């Protein structure tokens, strides 16, 4: 009798717990969008990392080649990587043969655990950066995203990627190395579909993450080289894929404004606090997170502008 009573009492509690877990959210509910035959993009939001979105703020992608699937980036967590792998397996019958990691930022490589380590490829410099910064990134991600990160560990890619043209199945991919965003940024261009996977050299309707940029002018120069490629589609690292070079122009416009505004502020003697609070032109209203990212940009990049504007005193 007592047991019966307890079980009746427990049932609603257990149901309640189950609901609470579902609401807390641990399912990324990823969807693949086929932008060209055999080319899928898994689009994330343009938000900042949070416990609500689980870090799904990034675009990942995969291509059928006839000889296996090429995946571009693995997402922000082990769970994301596993969800991405299930999505790929449910979308195409080809096996996953290559996973290309565009750069060492956590939202692009923390899903590595879900994939066969033999299939993970990364540029040499990017690997070094991941070795250097990975643990600090992981600490920060656990703090920002919480439980979604459970079980996530940094997996160093086994294979080194070399820039150049690469024939894989029925596709010819151009692998290009740039430096503007992190110091080692991979861009992938598929000749067949004319899709340019610009990774984080291009953001779309999302303010740029600049803390590890070697310099805004370096980044702008990278974009000029990218623009010369004959692409139809551009898949940015963050924000919606789009036809044409709209997103690239927006990114360049924002970078040029930032560089100019920081130079001017330094020449007028502004403090870091003042620069963080400066007006952002209304044409960038569509860029999500611009005030937040400006604070980050100023913290990391403004000191060099300030130093250049001061005189050496002897």
């Amino acid at each position: 009798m007592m047991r019966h009573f307890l079980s009746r009492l427990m049932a609603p509690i257990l149901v309640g717990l189950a609901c609470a877990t579902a609401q807390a959210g641990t399912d990324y509910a990823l969807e693949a969008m086929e932008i060209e035959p055999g080319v899928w993009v898994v689009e994330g939001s343009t938000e900042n990392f949070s416990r609500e979105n689980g870090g799904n703020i990034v675009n990942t992608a995969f291509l059928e080649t006839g000889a296996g699937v090429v995946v571009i980036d693995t997402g922000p967590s082990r769970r994301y990587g596993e969800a991405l792998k299930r999505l790929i397996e449910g979308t195409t019958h080809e096996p996953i043969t290559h996973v290309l990691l565009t750069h060492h930022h956590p939202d692009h490589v923390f899903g590595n655990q879900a994939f066969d380590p033999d299939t993970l490829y990364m540029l040499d410099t990017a690997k070094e950066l991941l070795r250097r910064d990975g643990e600090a990134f992981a600490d920060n991600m656990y703090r920002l995203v919480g439980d979604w990160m459970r079980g996530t560990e940094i997996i160093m890619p086994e294979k080194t990627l070399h820039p150049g043209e690469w024939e894989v199945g029925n596709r010819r991919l151009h692998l290009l190395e740039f430096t503007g965003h992190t110091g080692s940024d991979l861009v992938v261009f598929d000749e067949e579909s004319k899709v340019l996977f610009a990774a984080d050299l291009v953001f779309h309707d999302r303010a740029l993450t600049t803390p590890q940029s070697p310099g805004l002018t370096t980044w702008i120069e990278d974009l000029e080289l990218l623009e010369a490629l004959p692409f139809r589609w551009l898949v940015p690292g963050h924000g919606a894929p789009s036809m044409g070079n709209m997103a690239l122009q927006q990114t360049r416009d924002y970078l040029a404004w930032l560089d100019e505004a920081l130079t001017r502020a330094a020449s007028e003697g502004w403090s870091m606090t003042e620069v963080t609070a400066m007006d952002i032109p209304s044409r960038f209203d569509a860029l999500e997170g611009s005030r937040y990212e400006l604070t980050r940009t100023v913290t990391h990049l403004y000191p060099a502008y300030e130093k250049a504007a001061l005189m050496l005193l002897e």
Partner: protein
Amino acid sequence: MSRWWLLVLLWAGLQAHAGVPADPFGSPMWEYNLERYLGADVQVRHDARIDLQVPAFAEDSAQVPLTLDLANFPHRPQRIIAWVDLNPVPHLFTYEPGVTPLRLIALNFRVQQATTVRAAVQDDEGIWHVASAHVDAAGGGCTAPSLTAANPDWERSFGTIRGRAFSRGDHLRYKTSVMHPMDSGMVDNIPAFFIEQVELRDGGEDELLLRLMLSESAAENPMFVFELPHPLAAPRLWMRDNHGNVFERRLEGETG
């Protein structure tokens, strides 16, 4: 009888905190640090005319910008003490005035964890006016290895000073950066090594314009910003660290 005792205790408690308003941020260190840095039996009030600005979050816990703007503060500051409540050594700086009043000061500090930051400004009647702000942080800024330590060539740039004066109406803004590790003493057995004292003196009469005493919470390679009324002649900057190194420069180069 016991009820009377309770009343007496309550009254005594109220007396002890008569000069101290409640902390809007509810920091556990509020009263403790007030007493530690301002002393017991002091008059304290919150004052919105003091503009203390720190970012909502510390992007880099070892370099968090702070600006204290006194443009709307009607009194001549007799002393300013700034501290970071939850840092291992909370004290950031103490300012002592010279012949002209300070209008603005900015420098970067370290945060060990998310914390409140305070600036207490003493007026000529001895009352402390306090401004508070909160900064969120991943933390670790006091115990993070310095950039200096990672650079084997650091001694070549050690003590390099850059500066310039910028016109701000009837005031001048001095920006000065000095290459100094500002070691907090909390990292890898590297002892504390930081600039303790900064002075600005008038270039002509050598009168003191301001004096700043710094502590472990100050950030590496500091950038100081001071705004003062125009001095008669280009002022001299004088700094001394806790190892006795003295740095001295004339601050020239006023520009638009």
